């Protein structure tokens, strides 16, 4: 029943909140509208959504985003410094990160995370989704970087999506 009305509860929630954010009001009228849209839109979009593993452990999710935010702040400052510094001091590098996850959504989130955080940028994923190629702006120790990515981001994601 619930599944039929809210095939994608996650999205529905996001939409519901987003609507209130947009109008920034919690008047009954808007609550009603939000509810309607949050129900209608996902039902309409369902066909164009490919099947993805569900996320679990909401707390873990929140924690993950917390870390992410903090890293973004740090990342920006480091990168800013690098940009303003001398180009000669840069030691850019391509790095292949082995992946333990295969599902599309987690990989996408991981890749995005990497792109948003310290001097790293997801370039591409190997066809078998076993390798994530990233470009780093300035690395001295690749192994360290890879390890950090895997434990700081991949493992929580594996936990969240249970894959």
């Amino acid at each position, binding site marked *: 029943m619930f599944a039929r009305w809210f095939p994608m509860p996650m*999205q529905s929630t*996001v*939409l519901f909140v*987003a*609507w209130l954010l*947009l*109008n920034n009001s919690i*008047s*009954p*009228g808007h609550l*009603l*509208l939000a509810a309607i*849209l949050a129900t209608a*839109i*996902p039902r*309409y*979009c369902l*066909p*164009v*959504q*490919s099947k*993805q593993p569900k996320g679990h452990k909401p707390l873990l999710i929140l924690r993950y985003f917390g870390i992410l935010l903090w890293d973004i702040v740090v990342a920006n400052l480091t990168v800013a410094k690098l940009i303003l510094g001398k180009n000669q001091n840069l030691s850019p590098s391509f790095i292949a990160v082995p992946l333990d996850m295969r599902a*599309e*959504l987690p*990989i*996408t989130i991981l*890749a*995005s995370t990497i792109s948003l955080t310290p001097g790293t940028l*997801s370039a591409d*994923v190997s066809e078998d*989704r076993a390798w994530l190629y990233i470009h780093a702006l300035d690395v001295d120790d690749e192994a360290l970087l890879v390890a950090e990515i895997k434990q700081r981001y991949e493992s929580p994601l594996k936990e969240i999506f249970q894959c």
Partner: protein
Amino acid sequence: MLYWIPLLTLLGTLLPLATRNWSRTACAWSTAILPAVALILVVIQSPAVFQGNTLVEHYPWVTQLGLEIAFRLDGYALLFIFLILGIGLLIILYARYYLSEQDDMGRFYAYLILFMTAMLGIVMSENLLQLWAFWELTSISSFLLISFWSHKTDARKGARMALTVTGMGGLALLAGILLLGDTLGTFNLTEILARGDEIRASGRYPIILILILIGAFTKSAQFPFHFWLPHAMAAPTPVSAYLHSATMVKAGIFLVGRLYPSLSGTDLWFFLVTSTGTATLLVGAYIALFKHDLKGLLAFSTISHLGLIMLLFGLNSDLAAVAAVFHIINHATFKASLFMAAGIIDHETGSRDMRKLNGLWRYMPHTASLAIVAALAMAGVPLLNGFLSKEMFFNETVHQSSLGALSWMLPVLATVGATFSVAYSARFIHDVFFNGEPINLPRTPHEPPRYMKIPVEILVGVCILVGMAPAWVVGDLLNNASSALLQGDLPEYSLSLWHGFNIPLMMSITALILGLVIYNIRERLFAFQAKFADRDAKLEFERLVQLTVEAANNLYARLETNRLQNYVLTLFIFTLAVTAWPLMQIAETTGDREQLPPDWIAFGGILTLSLAAIMTLVWHRKRVIALISVSVVGLIVALIFARFSAPDLALTQLAVEVVTIILLMLALFFLPQSTPKESSPGVVFRDLGISIMVGGVMATLAFAMMTRPLETISDFFTANAKTGGGGTNIVNVILVDFRGFDTLGEITVLGIAGLGIYKLIRRMRLSLPTADSSGRAWSSDTHPMMLAMVSQALLPLALLVSAYIFLRGHNLPGGGFIAGLITAIALIQQYIANGVFFMKGKLRLDYQYLIGWGLLIAVATGLASWMFDRPFLTSWFDYLNWPVVGKFEVASAMVFDLGVYLTVVGATLLILSNLGKLSTTERPTEGENI
């Protein structure tokens, strides 16, 4: 009831068509009926006319133009009517036997009667404009008659020549008539004839005279316009007999006579008419002698006699005019009979070449005797009608003195002309009927069928009767005609055979003797003539026309390059041309409205914009780069709108720009990636110059406007947006309410564009590039995984946003259009990220229906207001207050905006999704159309 005369014949054109499948005799009879009735009608009317009355009838047509249906019957007209109908009937009888089985007789008779109608119209017209109408009708119907044997090249060419020459004359005539009418303020003949002095006094007289005479001269084949007539001989002989004896060529003569009272009596008249007449008389007579073709000889003799008549009119003497009228009668009779005789000969021997035709007297004595009498009349032998009018003619030439000391020239030239006419008449008689045996004719000659000769007999009879007892036979007719022509008392003249032994008689005798002499030494003359290249007028004319056409072609080809670049350039240059002058009148470009201070953003923004625009211009050959630059321009324009308090514009501009870019990318995939360097430096320089000027003009205009205060109607909108339109977003209220009609039209445009583009795409067959411009194969990763993921995730959000934009549009920036574009873009993003296959059938939407429904909803909203007896698109709104939900607005404008939304989504997706299909197996299939 005069109008019945032409009307009957007009109806008469239908009978032969109706009876074309009956027996030929029946067809001929049914053709003859109505003209005969018309003739009877005329005869009934004639007594009144013979008492010197002029019958006139007016019926209003386009009175504002001085154009009315007006007929006139006086002696002059009566004479011509008798000729037209009388000879016409004889021709019908004659043609019955002349035409062969395979000729479409019905069609022939129809044309003939149509022509007859036209002639009657001319001679009976009381209104000059109406006369002109019939005049043109003769040109057209004669075109049909001459080209009757349309499979023959020379028939077609002869017909076209006649039409062109007489048509040209007709146009000159029209100008003359209009000028005349403009001078007198009327087109009615009675008045025009009465006010001749006014015309002659007017400064426009010379122009009027020349224009009208051109009309008359071309029609009557006067030198130098005579050349078309001989080639009209390609027509069946009955046609020649009719057109070139009594009717068509006489139309010009008729006109000159008709307007004689209004236009004659001046030296200019004398000079123009007499000289033309004389030239024609001589040229015609001379050439006639050298024609080996029977009809050719007759054609030129016709020209010559027409010249004679014209000459007479030119003499500015009433007596001469009488002589002219008399000769009109005589020439009609003998020339008609001669043509018919020639036709018979042609018909029975299969040849018209006088070098082959010899000694026919033995084979067809009856026809021969008829032809000989007629020919003698043509030669002006005593006791025949031709003699009388020629005597009068000589008499007139002798008694005029307009040339002062040189007045003797005219009689001499007249005699020369007469001499040659004797010569060619002699040739006609001797070469054809005597002069040994026929030389290998197609058929052995014999007499024609009985009834074929009757018309000839009648006409020849007339020739003799008139010749013997002129006063008794044609006296009254001539008197009436002449007095009607002169519009006054007749001069003294007698129609007796014997005026004593006077100069004219001597002239005649001289002409007779000399003529025979010339005929005897003709061989030497032929040899002499042969020295001159025989210039074929038809070829000359064809060449002339060809040259004109080629000239037209060249000129047109030079002007019409069929190159878009030239068209656009012309457009811009013309734009500059018209705007230049007023702009130069503006003393001070800067107005006195207080200007805004420039600031950082504006500066940076405009600089960026300019850079981007110039980049587009500089790199327009590297297409992708140009594309990117254009999108920069679009972005900045949007920012400028935002900067100057126009958020709606900013939003719309942004959305539109992205869709445009996507569209351009889709197109670029199939188009060359780069533009070749084609324009020469000169061209580039020129184009740059023009562009800079255009830009300069627009910039100047903009600046001049912006720096001046302006009182507009907009305060009304500001004042009424909330109260009248129910919205605080004035722009949106204008769009969906104050000027909702524009928006309705605008989405219609969008919808139509969708349909049109769909049409374009359906039959499109493009080959897919397998590699990019640098030859690199495309990436194997058709739909990058992460992009697909995120796009899917964004779709709901995007839809939410568009819902948001839509709902707030009435009071805050947004609205149906922008919402529609956002939806469309969000969906297109799915196509881009996931591909057509993935999307196929997943969105339950028929975009074409979407357009239809969108437009329908918009229109329906407009129509709804009819129920409240308000005009189309009258808006309605109210504030509802529901429990829980609270107070909210409902407005008809929102329903309208929904229509906008749907149309936009439909059109955009119809375009883009179908365009996407181009490259996939989803190609639209041929065949099914609706």
